[in-house]
């Protein structure tokens, strides 16, 4: 779910203060969005791993974006840091500037932290500095966007973009499998990103298993506005649709607005990522949204947990193997009306 979003918090604080003082404004920023259950409500640590170990310092660095999912990622990591008394989590300011992120990692190395968790803005660009950290004896946990070298991380936690496509495709196949001429549409995210290509590939292959194909495809940009615009045009291009897969639930808000604008409901829609918004749509039973495929926002939280174990030189509970695994790939389950209760509490607000 990498996104290229501008991110400029420090200057913002200054100038926004000026804006506030300029005083045309009718409300108080603090009233905004009290909800902060965004993602990764920390579950009880399981098994022996919950027992306090030696005190460790873990550094976390992630990208910044105006996106619900990334927000949930960072919050999840922070919650894990608070969860354990034996962990001091240092969270560097989120950034979409790889150069800056490299400096953050350098800082962690200089501070001789016990482990580092990185969700790189760009995996390839951060590979070298991560390798340096590893060579300095600091275990690195790589989250979501993979480094280009296996030497750069001790453990990698990945979402499953290809699997999201497969899950969405399989669900649509189950619903439409017997209709060979069914019209399937796809609203992708940013087309130039590998993750989007992976999702589309998985989708296409799962559909072809039941003799379906993507008839209409548009790409948006993970934003509400982009989703609205892409969907509005798509709905005009295809007068009859049976199913739509929308890659991203943040842009899904816009997609749903466009669907409502067009007054269409002859199809069902499958979402992507698994935001609380979409899950509430599914729960209501009155929406065109029937399902969404989860791309867990808890990856960084898991990263912090594993980094703690690595730093304390401990094994992972429920595994016989005495070391923390090399790679963990999360599953992309399909959330439908049947199991939405189970997923909603941990979903992020988009």
């Amino acid at each position: 779910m990498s996104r290229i979003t501008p991110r400029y918090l420090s200057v913002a604080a200054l100038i926004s203060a000026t804006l506030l003082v300029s005083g045309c404004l009718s409300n108080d920023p603090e009233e905004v969005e009290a909800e902060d259950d965004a993602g990764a409500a920390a579950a009880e640590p399981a098994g022996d791993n919950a027992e306090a170990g030696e005190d460790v310092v873990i550094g976390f660095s992630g990208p910044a974006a105006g996106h619900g999912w990334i927000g949930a990622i960072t919050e999840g990591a922070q919650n894990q840091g608070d969860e354990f008394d034996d962990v001091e989590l240092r969270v560097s300011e989120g950034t979409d500037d790889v150069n800056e992120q490299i400096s953050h990692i350098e800082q962690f190395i200089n501070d001789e932290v016990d482990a580092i968790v990185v969700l790189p803005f760009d995996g390839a660009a951060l590979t070298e500095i991560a390798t340096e950290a590893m060579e300095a004896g600091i275990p690195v946990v790589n989250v979501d966007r993979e480094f280009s070298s296996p030497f750069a991380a001790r453990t990698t936690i990945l979402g499953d973009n290809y699997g999201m496509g497969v899950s969405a495709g399989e669900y649509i196949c189950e619903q439409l499998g017997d209709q060979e001429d069914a019209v399937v549409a796809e609203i992708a995210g940013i087309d130039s990103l590998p993750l989007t290509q992976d999702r589309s590939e998985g989708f296409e292959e799962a559909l072809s298993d039941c003799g379906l194909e993507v008839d209409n495809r548009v790409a948006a940009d993970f934003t509400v506005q982009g989703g609205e615009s892409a969907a509005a045009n798509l709905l005009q291009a295809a007068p009859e649709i049976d199913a739509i897969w929308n890659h991203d639930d943040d842009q899904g808000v816009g997609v749903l607005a466009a669907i409502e604008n067009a007054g269409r409901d002859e199809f069902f829609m499958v979402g992507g990522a698994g935001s609380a918004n979409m899950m509430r749509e599914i729960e209501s039973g009155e929406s065109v949204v029937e399902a969404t495929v989860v791309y867990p926002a808890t990856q960084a939280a898991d990263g912090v947990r594993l980094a703690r174990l690595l730093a304390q030189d401990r094994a992972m509970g429920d595994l016989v193997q005495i070391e923390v695994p090399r790679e963990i790939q999360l599953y992309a389950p399909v959330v439908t009306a049947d199991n939405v209760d189970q997923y909603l509490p941990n979903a992020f607000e988009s």
Partner: protein
Amino acid sequence: MSETTAAGSAPGTDTSAVSAQEPGSRRDRGNGNGKKTATGTKLSLGHSLGLVLALAALVVLGIITGGTRFLSVDNLMVILQQAAVVGVISIGATFVITSGGIDLSVGSVMGLATIWATTLGTQAIAMDFHWLIMVFTALAVGVAAGLLNGIIIAYGKVVPFIATLAMLVAARGFAELISGRQTQIVSVPGFTNAFRRDILGIPVIVWMFVLVAVAGWFLFNRTTFGRRTIAVGGNREAARLAGIKVNRHLVMVYALSGLCVGISAVMMLSRTTAGSSTNGYLYELDVIAIVVVGGTLLAGGRGTIFGTVLGVLIFAVLTNVFVQNNLDSSVQSVVKGAIIVGAVLLQQRFSSHSRT
């Protein structure tokens, strides 16, 4: 590709149009009583002929490839509604660019305005009193940002590029801060009902665009404000000597741009039913492309509202035709890029003509 042909046919038409109006289009930087260029109306229609042809060619392409589906009322309304949001900002930007400035902050400020209009606080007040509160909030945020831009540029003597770049950065960050980077759904039914319905079969936001465009045209071509904008952009010193309060005028131009941003924030809210800090992302680039393609000179001193409207329509129709034909988004970007370069090349030809 027929859009290329259309663009190719533009030079012929436009050159003749321009030579016919050479006196009006001359940008005499030397003896610059900028008010002379107020005859720019005629010029704009002449230049716009190429754009009209390009638009017509795109429409023909749409009809050939999409047939009745392309021409259906629903589809035309989708095109117009998409054009409307970015179109309103572009009208404001036409004034800014004509005045010799640039406003890079439009997209970010639009994001901020939508977020501020949908914060729980604002929505609660709007529920208790009237949905107009949300509208005023959006407009106020836009105007405030515009005023701040204008004051920093005019009185702080900061280059517009830098001042509005700072605003671009700051407004987006501010929007993220107050939204916590979460999408805020509009839960005031009165607001959505008011802006999402049709009047005489045409959606409200299309009417809003028409109103803003007509008002913009009137302001630009028929008032002292418009003439002064051209004068300030053509030759600031001459404008000052001619008795124009240049600084005050610049502040008003940026505030006007901010007002347009506020209006389009309201339109965006009605389209997407959600405030988001990502709203308006990269709009500044679309807007500059539209205004420049529309025939407004990036260096200032010459502008056309009609051209801007055509520019918006061309980009909206292009997107629609591409999606109708299920074409790749990358191809679309390439063609858009080609259109921008083509338009600017044409423009340079004109300005070198008029200099000789």
